[in-house]
């Protein structure tokens, strides 16, 4: 199924269910329900990486790379907030190279908030949020130069990446930085696995900030997305079973799962 301009009834029901599920989980968490979140070794290593920078007096670099304003950026902000808070606590230098000017403003706000939360608002330097370029490889070369000049002790790469992923990760490798990457771009995950100490794959990026902060809103979102994913997995299994049965018994006319999502409003009879 290609991109949709307008939702079909099936998709409308799914979106409505997602909204209700999120609101339900929020209410549940607010009432004190505690969800279990499995260990994410890459996130556990954040504290160690920052501590190592404190020992060696080296800078911490956090990039959201090609991430523009959208859900992925907000997922990264949760981690950035936690990292910046710890960096502020250790009185380290934080550098956040930026690709998108729109995202830069939001990132700056989040880092300033983290410094305030750490009680070191005055130590926040707006120039630590560096706009490099909106051109992919100009950004990559700027990042490389920055990491080399500052001899970064830890590099966090969270967000959307494309062909520049390996260039960024290699820059950190060359200066011996401890690197933690998280990407929703599956094509780049392999490069990160090869070059970084820890790699978070796909949705782990969205779970990271909930894991670090344990804030009710973030934990509720994580729980809701897991339940919705479970539902989709169930739909996939039903679809596979249906298609298998249909191929074994061709005379049966079983409705396909696809029908639920693709039936248009105009096809419905009232």
């Amino acid at each position, binding site marked *: 199924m290609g991109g*949709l*301009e*307008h*939702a079909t009834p099936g998709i409308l029901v799914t*979106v409505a269910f*997602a909204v209700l599920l*999120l609101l339900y989980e929020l209410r549940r968490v607010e009432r004190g329900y505690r969800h279990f979140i499995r260990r994410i070794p890459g996130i556990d290593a954040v504290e160690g990486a920052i501590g190592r920078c404190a020992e060696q007096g080296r800078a911490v670099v956090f990039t959201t790379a090609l991430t523009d304003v*959208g*859900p992925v950026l*907000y*997922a990264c*902000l*949760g981690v950035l*907030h936690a990292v910046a808070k710890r960096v502020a606590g250790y009185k380290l230098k934080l550098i956040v190279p930026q690709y998108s*000017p*729109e995202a*830069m*403003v939001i990132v700056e*706000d989040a880092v*300033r*908030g983290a410094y*305030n*939360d750490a009680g070191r*608002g005055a130590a926040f330097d707006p*120039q630590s949020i*560096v*706009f490099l370029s*909106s*051109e*992919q*490889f*100009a950004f990559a*070369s700027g990042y490389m130069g920055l990491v080399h000049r500052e001899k970064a002790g830890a590099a966090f790469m969270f967000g959307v990446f494309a*062909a*520049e992923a*390996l*260039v960024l990760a*290699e820059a950190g*490798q060359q200066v011996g930085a401890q690197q933690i990457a998280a990407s*929703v771009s*599956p094509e780049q995950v392999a*490069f990160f*696995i*090869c*070059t970084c100490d820890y790699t978070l794959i*796909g*949705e782990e*990026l*969205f*779970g990271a*900030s909930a894991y670090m*902060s344990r*804030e009710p*809103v973030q934990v509720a*979102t994580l729980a809701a*997305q897991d339940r*919705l994913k479970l539902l*989709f997995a169930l739909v996939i299994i039903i679809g596979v079973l249906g298609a298998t049965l249909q191929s074994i018994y061709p005379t049966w006319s079983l409705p396909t799962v696809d029908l639920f999502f693709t039936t248009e*409003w*105009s096809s419905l009879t009232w």
Partner: protein
Amino acid sequence: MVTINSSDQRARLIGIFTFLGGIYFFLYFVLPESAISFIGVKDRHEAISNGFIVIGAMAIGLGLFNLVSAHGTRIVFKKIGWVYSLALITGLVCMLGVTSAQWLQSLALSAEQQRSQIISEFAQRIIDDADKTTATLTVPALQVRVDALKLYGFEHLSVLETKLLGQRGASSLLQHELQKNIATVREKLAQLDAVSWGELSPGSATLLKEVVTSGAKFSVARGAYLREAAATTTVQQLYTLLYEGFFNQLGSAMFALLGVYIAAAAYRAFRIRSVESALMMAAALIVMLGQISFGRMISDDMPALRQWLLEVPNSAAFRAIRLGAGVAGLMLAIRMWLSIESRSFSAGKKR
């Protein structure tokens, strides 16, 4: 008494605008196409979407400000690496200056071509207006309009010919083509004197149509001539040097680094230290061997095995990652839209 501080008000305002912006796109997506067309939004959707893009584009100024402020400070106080900052600011100013000059030049070029298009468009307009009923028209008489067309046409062509005499830059072939077209249009305009213009007869309409056709050809030839002449200007050559000569080449050089980095990364990743890295090594080996003819020498099944690896386990993993990220993105988008945000993200909040 409860007091609302300015940061609370700011957050509330942002929340309201986010919700309003989001609800437009949400309703546009969830409502059936017939309902969207009925309320008249369908035709305006592109304009509304462009409006949102324009608001986003305004942020580019913020990036520019950040660059100038960060690197300007470094240059003024001669901090470490100030020479690099100077190179960056110089590059920025040069590129901005040359691009602006090139943009102004292209505007002037479009205006010039537009002036040449008028002959053909005006003639076509005269034909179109004559086809309509006179009651709905408030245009001057046909004779007056044809006279105006001739006057404008002859004057424009004379000015152009004078310009062409002293101009150089474009190839003589294009100049010759343009001069040939000028002569044709002049001839067709002169032929308009042969008939009376009380009303549009089939014969006079044919003459006007010939002006339309020759005028269109003339405007195309003029456009080609102008573009070629503009390519030889100092501004265009500087732009080509900076953009195609430097910028694109530097980008390609960075991309080329990937080849070396992939080899270095592969060397590190393929050292067999665990079961996972052994699996990775085996999969990579099969994919690489399946890609080259040497693989077929080892086994005829190697390309098929490679294809299976890519299409079955690899695709399954990709789909799982995309599904997980998609669902998580949907939940976060809903949360953003409803402004159910973590309080700690905002700079104004102090706990």
